[in-house]
């Protein structure tokens, strides 16, 4: 996909996030929207996968450690044909095939997450497992900035560096907010790019809504392996891409009544050349 197509794909992911969460009446929209551009790059251009065979052994792996952003992952997976689009309508409903937190039972999901702080360790395990078996694919992991409060994240960070897991690329969704407010007010973690570097990682800071920047940074990390894991700090906005959601100060997990859904979709359909999919 070229950058224009990736941007449109990101827009489609957002549309589906809104529709799915809207159908349910509410959910974790802020942190889902902040990773849509990343997901469009990953599923549009970077990752190797086979929707017909989600457990294909040669696929690249993706662990969404901030499991509450599952609506965004599911939307990308549905758009890429891992399961029918209609499944999105049953997001987080009783008896659903798509639980609100990222769940391994969903085709295309590599890890069950939702208890924050566990996914990076799983990603380390996958990366290390692939390495010792001489398998060459990449492992991607998405963590939240609030999630980086958890001690287990830093245990995994040490592990990845110690075992030279240069097949591991972790994205830190730096949207500057968690549940109780801004990271700065809840738990200051300082300069995260520097922290990871001092843990023995490569680290880069990019605009998390600029698909070209994201894509080039991932390409370089995959191509120029140097024995270190890579962390990409995505400078993002919680609720990104839909101004009426961005403007809500606490948009972590909110009700999404029909009126708001319409407003959101109205904004998204302004993106030029959109291929409407429902």
């Amino acid at each position, binding site marked *: 996909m070229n950058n224009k197509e990736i941007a449109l794909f990101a827009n489609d992911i957002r549309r589906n996030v809104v529709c799915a969460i809207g159908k349910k009446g509410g*959910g974790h929209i802020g942190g889902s929207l902040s990773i849509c551009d990343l997901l469009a790059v990953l599923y549009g251009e970077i990752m190797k996968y086979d929707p017909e065979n989600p457990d294909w052994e040669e696929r690249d792996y993706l662990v969404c450690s901030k*499991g509450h952003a599952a609506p965004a992952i599911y939307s990308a997976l549905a758009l890429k044909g891992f399961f029918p689009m209609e499944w999105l309508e049953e997001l*987080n*409903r*009783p*008896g*659903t095939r798509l*639980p*609100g*937190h990222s*769940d391994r039972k969903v085709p295309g999901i590599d890890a*069950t*997450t*939702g*208890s*924050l*702080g566990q996914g990076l360790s799983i990603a380390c395990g996958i990366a290390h497992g692939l390495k010792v078996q001489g398998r060459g694919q990449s492992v991607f992991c998405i963590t939240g900035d*609030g*999630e980086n*409060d*958890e*001690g287990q994240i830093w245990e995994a960070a040490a592990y990845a560096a110690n075992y030279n897991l240069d097949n591991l690329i972790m994205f830190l969704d730096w949207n500057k907010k*968690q*549940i*109780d*407010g801004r*990271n700065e007010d*809840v*738990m200051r973690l300082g300069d995260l790019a520097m922290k990871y570097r001092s843990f023995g990682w490569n680290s880069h800071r990019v605009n998390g809504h600029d698909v070209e920047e994201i894509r080039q940074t991932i390409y370089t990390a995959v191509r120029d392996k140097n024995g270190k894991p890579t962390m990409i700090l995505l400078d993002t906005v919680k609720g990104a891409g839909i101004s009426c959601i961005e403007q809500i100060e*606490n948009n*972590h997990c909110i009700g999404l009544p029909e009126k708001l859904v319409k407003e959101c979709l109205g904004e998204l359909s302004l993106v030029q050349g959109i291929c409407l999919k429902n």
Partner: protein
Amino acid sequence: MEHIIYTGDKPVKEIFEVFSETLEELFHEDSSVVYIDADLMASMRTKDLWEKYPKNVFNTGIQEANMVGVAGGMNLTGLKPYIHSFAPFAVRRCFDQIYVTVGYAHKSVRIIGSEPGICATDNGGTHMTFEDMALMRTIPEACVIDISDAGMFRQLLKKTKDRRGVTYFRTPRRGLPDIYAPETVFEIGKGKILREGHDAAVIASGIMVSSALQAAELLHEEGIEVSVIDPVTVKPLDYDLIEMFARKTKAIVTVENHSITGGLGSAVAETVSERYPVPVERIGVYDRFGQVGNEAFLREQYLLTTEEIVNRVKNLVKRKNEI
């Protein structure tokens, strides 16, 4: 028997309101009381306190294990910590820290685990704890309280301020109907008799107490009279009360929003089998993980309904009469 005011209506005050009010009262009564949360103040609606009491309220961010350790350390300096997170993260996520730093080291820390069991509803399987009471019950000297009423919560939060060891409260954040009259006095280790009948005793805790009361009424209409007991503290259990009702009714049914392994049902069955063996039926979750759903759906899924209590009591009474 206890004076109860249960109607099934909405409570006068929700648990989260009572929590904030009680903490505030505690801060005024004793400046050494502190409250720590791990990025779930917004969920428990305590952010106002965080602003208002900077010397008493702290946020660790998403660090449950660290929060337990910090609470243990603060207690060593004379502070009296109350810590909160969702039940899975307050217990399961940091069990060793609770066991060693608080339990084994005899610190005084109160842990509030909110939205236990099916109360996790839309948060689904990762957030659904059917094992928290089982885990906490195994810690020596720990106290485990399955909150069934806002007044109970308020009183026991206060009464355990100086209690040594692990004190664990599991409670929904809202929607718990009032059961007890305002003058009710609650004690650790003292159960409550909510209704008396000789055919069977239904021992229910937490959100299942009101279901047990409803079931008792339905059974009464069919001519079956049951006692309803709320143990208040699942540990220490009111052993004498359980034994008394085993002797009186010769048939016990336990009901809990928890796995039947390790929680109230286990505690009662252990007591009954050692003190006065009679048949015990345990209603609760059978060796299953949680899932997404609203409360009504989850009650059906895990057989935590009034009908289930009615049916199980009837079967048990029949079985008892055949013996």
